[in-house]
């Protein structure tokens, strides 16, 4: 196979971006979609070919293709280099495969939107940068993709830029990510200082040549990389942008904020495993951050009412799992969960989009219900996703999540058991909020038409449905109500075009749902561990990449406890299912009482632990005040404007003097002329230095 084809993988989406971004406005919609789809389908084909090539016997573990030098100064050189190994292959497969399905879905979902060409141009731009990110062979090129996906994310979150909330969410995502990028940049500077190179190959080789054991001087590098990863992968303390990112169109949430971009941080940590393995401190930080994020996001997710927000917090929580897996050194488990998560979370978002589409733009679960019969295919596919994420065997997340929990349990660290308990608790809550979403959306009485009868699902927001849970007590829980009001005018996928009741989506949207549902069911089977009679193919597949990792010894550990641990996690999943069923199907209204009885706790969760407010008070407001009064008032108005006024005033003063000569009086001109002539004569006679003679 000609490896130069690697260049085409990112460049084709870029070409699609150029075509749609420049002349897309004039093209008919099928042509726009055709260009965008081809620009992702062909790379997917190349990836498939590459996959088969890498599987064939006798090929090397990794291949690189390199260009002419990109930056070349004395003692330091960076090339445009792409590398393929098995880790990259999995990422490439996920990005191009899931990406293509979401492109197909979008072709129908966005059909009514006037920004059709813009949407696909941005989507292709995202694919370009994401593929650069996963293919990059050095930190700098990875950083190019890293920044680029941030840009595409910003553009797509703010896709409905006329809506203030969307524009602000885009800015928030971008700025929070900048904090992480700052850490990444500093890490790169340190790497240049230590190793004089940014190439993965060089850096990791030099690290592996070091004497065995931890290297504390690598800890700052690793921690700065973690900061970068926390920004991109929405971990504590930088997770706040992801829930707001749901302002973007739903396919964007599925592609960027669930399946691909947010996993870039996990990919980066896994890619740098050689570095992280030398710094147990950094790994512990990663594991603790991951566990804390998983737990915190899951608790918030339990009380959200917006269907997309539930999924957003669920994504943050699942990313926490992956972080935890990386932190305990189980990179394969993290990547395994990354892959299955890409399948079922993309599925859940797309199915949620289908529900929203069916309900003409409604996202509030309190007015959903009984949709099982109305949109059966969406229901069945979404059920696959819900059962998968909840960890019901033998669906995808059962195997991947279980692997993470098992690896956490056997982690050689005093924190291992604590993190494992957090993990199990999170699994319980994950199961609870996903089934809560499932029951509230698809079961119970059908409520939507009542709502629409009073003015198209807008007016009732103020006085929310009485018979529903949790919402009616707390303070202004429903943070989205203001945006919901705006939604009718312009929302996801031009919903106003469907005034007629609830309807199933077109097959262009359902096709990707079905494929993803199948993947969500069978996706976990590539990693069935030995304890369940499988071969853990994924671990073998990734073996060449992670083999040098320190946890090699764990492979031989007897997997006795694994079945016991699996029983616990399945039990927790079933408990979550049962609780959700009990609260939302059996005893409707029990949830309200609970919320009422535990009002402080409920209020804390409903306000998302007031994290946004705390950040606002501690960071954003002081910064704004500093900018307004010190930088704006003193520096800008005082020094900068003062200097400008001074320069202007001086010029004006001189010009006032000079202006006197231009009196308009002809005789004064004549006088100046005579004076000048006299001066010339004097100079001619006496010279310029009359006194030197």
């Amino acid at each position, binding site marked *: 196979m000609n490896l130069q084809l690697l260049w085409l993988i990112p460049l084709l989406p870029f070409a699609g971006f150029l075509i749609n971004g420049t002349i897309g406005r004039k093209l008919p919609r099928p042509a726009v979609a055709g260009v965008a789809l081809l620009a992702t389908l062909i790379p997917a084909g190349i990836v498939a070919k590459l996959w088969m090539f890498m599987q064939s016997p006798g090929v090397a573990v990794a291949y690189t293709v390199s260009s002419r030098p990109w930056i070349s100064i004395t003692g330091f050189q960076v090339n445009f280099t792409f590398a393929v190994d098995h880790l990259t292959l999995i990422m490439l497969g996920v990005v191009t495969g899931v990406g293509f399905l979401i492109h197909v879905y979008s072709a129908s979902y966005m059909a009514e939107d006037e920004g059709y060409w813009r949407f696909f141009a941005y989507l292709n731009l995202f694919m370009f940068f994401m593929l650069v990110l996963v293919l990059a062979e050095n930190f700098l090129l990875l950083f190019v993709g890293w920044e680029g996906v941030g840009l595409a994310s910003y553009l797509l979150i703010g896709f409905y830029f006329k809506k203030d909330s969307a524009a602000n969410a885009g800015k928030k995502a971008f700025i929070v990510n900048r904090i992480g990028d700052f850490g990444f940049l500093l890490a790169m500077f340190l790497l240049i200082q230590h190793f004089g190179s940014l190439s993965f190959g060089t850096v990791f080789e030099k690290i592996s040549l070091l004497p065995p054991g931890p290297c504390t001087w690598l800890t700052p590098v690793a921690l700065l990389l973690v900061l970068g990863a926390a920004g991109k992968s929405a971990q504590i303390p930088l997770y706040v942008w992801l829930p707001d990112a749901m302002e973007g169109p739903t396919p964007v949430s599925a592609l960027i904020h669930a399946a691909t971009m947010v996993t870039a941080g996990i990919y980066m940590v896994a890619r740098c495993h050689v570095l992280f393995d030398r710094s147990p401190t950094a790994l512990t930080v990663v594991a603790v951050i991951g566990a804390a994020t998983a737990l915190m996001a899951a608790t918030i997710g339990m009380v959200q009412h917006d269907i997309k927000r539930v999924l957003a917090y669920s994504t943050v929580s699942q990313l926490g799992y992956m972080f935890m897996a990386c932190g305990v050194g189980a990179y394969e488990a993290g990547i395994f969960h990354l892959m299955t998560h890409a399948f079922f979370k993309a599925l859940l978002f797309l199915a949620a989009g289908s529900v929203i589409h069916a309900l003409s733009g409604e996202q509030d679960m309190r007015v959903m219900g009984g949709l099982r019969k109305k949109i059966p295919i969406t229901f069945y596919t979404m059920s696959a996703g819900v059962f998968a994420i909840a960890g019901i065997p033998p669906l995808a997340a059962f195997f991947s999540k279980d692997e993470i929990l098992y690896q956490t349990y056997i982690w050689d660290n005093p924190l291992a058991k604590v993190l494992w308990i957090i993990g199990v608790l999170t699994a319980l809550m994950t199961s609870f909020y996903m089934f809560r979403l499932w029951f509230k959306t698809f079961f119970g009485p059908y409520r939507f038409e009542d709502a629409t009868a009073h003015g198209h699902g807008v007016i009732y927001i103020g006085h929310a449905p009485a018979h529903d849970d949790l919402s009616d007590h707390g303070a202004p829980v429903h943070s989205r109500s203001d945006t919901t009001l705006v939604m009718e005018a312009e929302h996801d996928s031009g919903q106003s075009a469907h005034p007629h009741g609830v309807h199933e989506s077109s097959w262009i949207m359902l096709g990707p749902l079905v494929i993803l549902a199948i993947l969500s069911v069978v996706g976990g089977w590539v990693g069935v561990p030995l304890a369940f009679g499988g071969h853990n193919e994924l671990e073998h597949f990734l073996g060449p990449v992670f083999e040098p990792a320190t946890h090699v010894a764990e492979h031989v550990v007897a997997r006795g406890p694994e079945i016991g641990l699996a029983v616990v996690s399945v039990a927790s999943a079933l408990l979550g299912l049962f609780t959700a069923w009990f609260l939302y199907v059996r005893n409707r209204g029990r949830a309200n009482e609970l919320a009422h009885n535990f009002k402080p706790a409920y209020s804390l969760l409903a306000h998302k632990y007031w994290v946004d407010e705390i950040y606002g008070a501690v960071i954003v407001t002081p910064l704004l005040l500093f900018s307004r009064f010190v930088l704006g008032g003193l520096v800008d108005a005082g020094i900068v404007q003062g200097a400008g006024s001074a320069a202007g005033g001086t010029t004006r003063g001189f010009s006032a003097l000079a202006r006197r000569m*231009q*009196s*308009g*009086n*002809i*005789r004064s001109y*004549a*006088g100046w002329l*005579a004076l000048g002539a006299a001066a010339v004569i004097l100079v001619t006679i006496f010279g310029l230095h009359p006194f030197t003679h």
Partner: protein
Amino acid sequence: MVPVAYYLILAAVLFCIGIGSFLIKRNVISIFMSIELMLNAVNLTFVAFAHMWHQVSGQIFVFFVMVVAAAEAAVGLAIIIALFRSRQTLNVDQVNLMKN
């Protein structure tokens, strides 16, 4: 033989009269005439020096100046007529439309 200094003093006196009236007079035609006076003062010095050095180049310059002065008179008088037609005055102090 009249010494050349006499010519030069006469020319200087003429030139100063020219400059003085050029600065003092308000009537455009008077200003114009004072310019002619200055030109002729210069012509006189040219001729005087040409005579003194026995060279014709000074005299040729005098012809040049005369030709240019004639052309200037034609153009200048045309401007003065146009000025009078539009402003009904020959007072230069009142011809300050470009000011402000």
